[in-house]
C-alpha cells in the first residue's frame, strides 16, 4: 500500500469547537484510511498554535457555542488567518461544519453587537436574527453532485452564499438559510456544511472525495480501494425512510445535479 503517501490533517480547535460531536468526522477519515492501510496523522491545533499550513493535506473545523466561537474567530482570523487562507487558496482540502463553516465566510452578524469578521474564504456571510427567526433544528436531507446527503442541523445563524457554489439542494430541512434551498458551500477543495450527525460517517462519498482530493494534490491519481459500506448504506437508508425521501436515493450520484425541484419539501418520487 505504498502508493498512498501518509496524510496530515490539521484538526482546528478540537476542544473549543466540538459542540455536536464533530470529532466523529476526523475519526471517520482516520478509520477509512486505516482500513486501506493508509496512515493519517492528526495534529490538534488549539488557541495560539501557529502551524505551517503548507505541510498539511487536510484541515477540519467543527462548531462551537457562541462564546467559544467568538474566542475561536479571533484566533482564526488573527493568529492562524493569513497562513490558513493562503493554504486554502493553494488547494488545502478542508471540511468545515456548522460554526466552523460560518467562520470561514466573510463575516458573522449577531442579533446584537458588532460583526464578527471571518476568514473570508467562502464567498458567503452569516446573520443571526435573534428571536425574530427560529433556530434551524432537525434531521435534514439534501441532494447534489455527491448524491444524497443526510445529517442533523442545529444552527441559529443563516448563511447567504455570495459567490461560492452550494454543496447541495435541500430536500428536507433548512440548509443554509431556510429560504433559497441551498445547503453548504464548495470553494476550491474546501467544503462547508450545516450537517452533523456526524456528517462523514453517514456520507462516505464525501469522506472519500476529501481523501482523493488530498492525494490528487500530492500527484497520486490512483483511485482509492473500495470499502464495504453496507453499514453506512443501512444508516442512510434508515434516515431516508424516516424522512420519506426517495427510496432509490442511494442508487448512486444524482444525475439531476442542481435542478429546480421544490425546496425543503419531501420528495416522494421513487
Amino acid at each position: 500500500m505504498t502508493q498512498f503517501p501518509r496524510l496530515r490533517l490539521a484538526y482546528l480547535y478540537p476542544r473549543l469547537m466540538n459542540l455536536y460531536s464533530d470529532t466523529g468526522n476526523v475519526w471517520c477519515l482516520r478509520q477509512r484510511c486505516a482500513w486501506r492501510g493508509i496512515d493519517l496523522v492528526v495534529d490538534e491545533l488549539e488557541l495560539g498554535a501557529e502551524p505551517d499550513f503548507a505541510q498539511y493535506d487536510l484541515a477540519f473545523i467543527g462548531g462551537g457555542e457562541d462564546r467559544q466561537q467568538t474566542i475561536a474567530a479571533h484566533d482564526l482570523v488573527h493568529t492562524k488567518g493569513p497562513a490558513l487562507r493562503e493554504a486554502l487558496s493553494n488547494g488545502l482540502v478542508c471540511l468545515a461544519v456548522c460554526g466552523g463553516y460560518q467562520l470561514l465566510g466573510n463575516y458573522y452578524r449577531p442579533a446584537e453587537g458588532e460583526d464578527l469578521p471571518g476568514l473570508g474564504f467562502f464567498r458567503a456571510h452569516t446573520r443571526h436574527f435573534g428571536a425574530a427567526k427560529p433556530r434551524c433544528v432537525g434531521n435534514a436531507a439534501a441532494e447534489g453532485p455527491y448524491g444524497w446527503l443526510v445529517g442533523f442541523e442545529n444552527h441559529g445563524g443563516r448563511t447567504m452564499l455570495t459567490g461560492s457554489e452550494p454543496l447541495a439542494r435541500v430536500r428536507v430541512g433548512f440548509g443554509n438559510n431556510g429560504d433559497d434551498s441551498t445547503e453548504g458551500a464548495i470553494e476550491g477543495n474546501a467544503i462547508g456544511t450545516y450537517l452533523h450527525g456526524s456528517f462523514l460517517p453517514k456520507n462516505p462519498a464525501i469522506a472519500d472525495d476529501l481523501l482523493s482530493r488530498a492525494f490528487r494534490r500530492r500527484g497520486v491519481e490512483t483511485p482509492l480501494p473500495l470499502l464495504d459500506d453496507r453499514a453506512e448504506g443501512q444508516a442512510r437508508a434508515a434516515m431516508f425512510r424516516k424522512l420519506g425521501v426517495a427510496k432509490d436515493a442511494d442508487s448512486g450520484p444524482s444525475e439531476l445535479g442542481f435542478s429546480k425541484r421544490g425546496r425543503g419539501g419531501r420528495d416522494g418520487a421513487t
Partner: protein
Amino acid sequence: MQPRLSAALAATRLASWASAAGGRGGTSLPGLVGLRVEPLLVTKLAGQLDSAIVVAGTNGKTTTAAWLGAALRADRRPLIHNREGSNMLRGVATTLAKRSALSGRLGGGRPLVGLFEVDEAALPVILGQVRPSIVLLTNLFRDQLDRYSELALVADHWRAPLRAMPASSTLVLNADDPLVASLGDDVTARVLYFGVDSWPGDRRAQLASSADSLYCPGCGGALAFSSVAYAHLGHYRCPACGRERPAVAVSARVISEGVHGTSLTVSMGDQSIEARLATPGRYNVYNAVAAIAAAVTSGVPLDRAVAAVEAAKGAFGRAETIEAARRTVRLYLIKNPTGADEVLRLLASGLKGGDLLTLLSDNAADGLDVSWIWDAEFELLAGWGGRVTCGGTRAEDMALRLKYAGIAGSPTVVPEDVGEAVRSALEGTPVGGTLVIVATYTAMLAARDALARGGHVRQYWQKAGA
C-alpha cells in the same frame, strides 16, 4: 373550599383512572389535565408543604433524588416525591394532586416534605411555583442540545430565578463543575458547596473529549485543571481572573474504586464517616455526595444520611440488575457522551463476556439528535467477547458507530420494536449467561416494560411507597 382547585383535582383523578385502565402508569397526563383546569394547581398545593427540595442537573438527578429520598425517609420525614419519571411541571402537578383530597387539602394535614426532580428547561417555572427551601444542582453536560441549544444558555436561563430565592433558602451546588459552581455568584440564598477532594492515584489528568465546561464562566479564559474526576468535573482555576473551585462544606475522599463499588470517606466540618457504595462509577460518587449534602442541609444527621445512601440501590433503569428467564440482565441508561463514557468504562473494566444489546432511540425524551454517540468512547468496547445487537429507532446509527469503534464483526440490527429486540436478545443469550443492555431513555422504559410483561420485574410505577 376552592371550587376551581377541586374541579382540577377531580379532573386529575379521572385522567389517572383513564390511564390506569389503559394499562399505563400515567405520570404526566393527570397533571396536564389538572393544570388546564387550574393553572395555579402546583402553587396552591405546594404552598401547603412543610418544605420543598428541588433537584436539577443533566446527569444523575433521578439517582440523586432517590438517594436523597432514602436519607429523608431514614430521618422519618413524611415525603412526597415525583419518582415516577415525569419531571416537568405536569409531573410535579400529578404527584401533588395524587396526595391531595378533593377539598384541596394536601396530605391530610400532615407536614410533608416535597422532593422534586426537575427537568433543566422546567426549572425556572417550577422554582416560581414550588418555592423550595433547598435547590440541589448536580452538573451541566451537553444533553439534548436540540432542546436547549447551548449549555451556557441553560445556566443563564437559571440565574435570575436562582437569584430570586430568599435568604432563608439554600443552594446546594457541585463545586467541581465550573458552570454549576458559578450559579452561586450574586445570590441572596445561602450557598453550600459539595465536591470530591481526591481519587485514588488521581489517574486522570486528561480532560475527556466529551468535556464541556473548559472555559471560565466569569471571564471566558481557558481553565487550568489540577485534577479531573471525569469529563470537566475536577479541581480548576482560571489563570486569567483567579476564579477557582470554591471551598466545599461536604466532601468525599475516594479510597478505592472498582466495578463492584466504591469505598470513600465523607466529611463535613470535623466529622468524617467511612462509606461503601455498592453502585459503581465516579458519577455515582457525585450522586451520593450531592444527596448527602442536600440531606444534611435539610437537617438529617450526617451519619444517618450516609447510612441511607449506602443502603440504597440504583434508581430504576440506571445500572439495574434483573434476573430474567435464568439469565442476568444488566440495564444501563445512556443519554449523553459523559454518562455513556462512564458506563462504557465500567463495561470495559470487568463485565466483558456477556451479550450486548444497544438501544438507541430518537424520540423527544431521548433527544432528536443522536450525534452524541460519536463523542462517546465506544472504542472502549473493542474486543467485546459476546454477541452485539442494535435496536431502537436509530439502531442503524449505533451499528455504524460500533463499526467505526472497531467492534468485531458487524453488529446485527434487530427489529425496531424494543420489546421484540429485548425478547430476541434474551433468547439468544445462553441460560446462566449475562445480557448487558445500554439504552436511551424511552428505549430503557420500553425494555423494562418488556421485562415486566415477561414477569421479570415490577413496573416502576408499582413500587411500594411514595
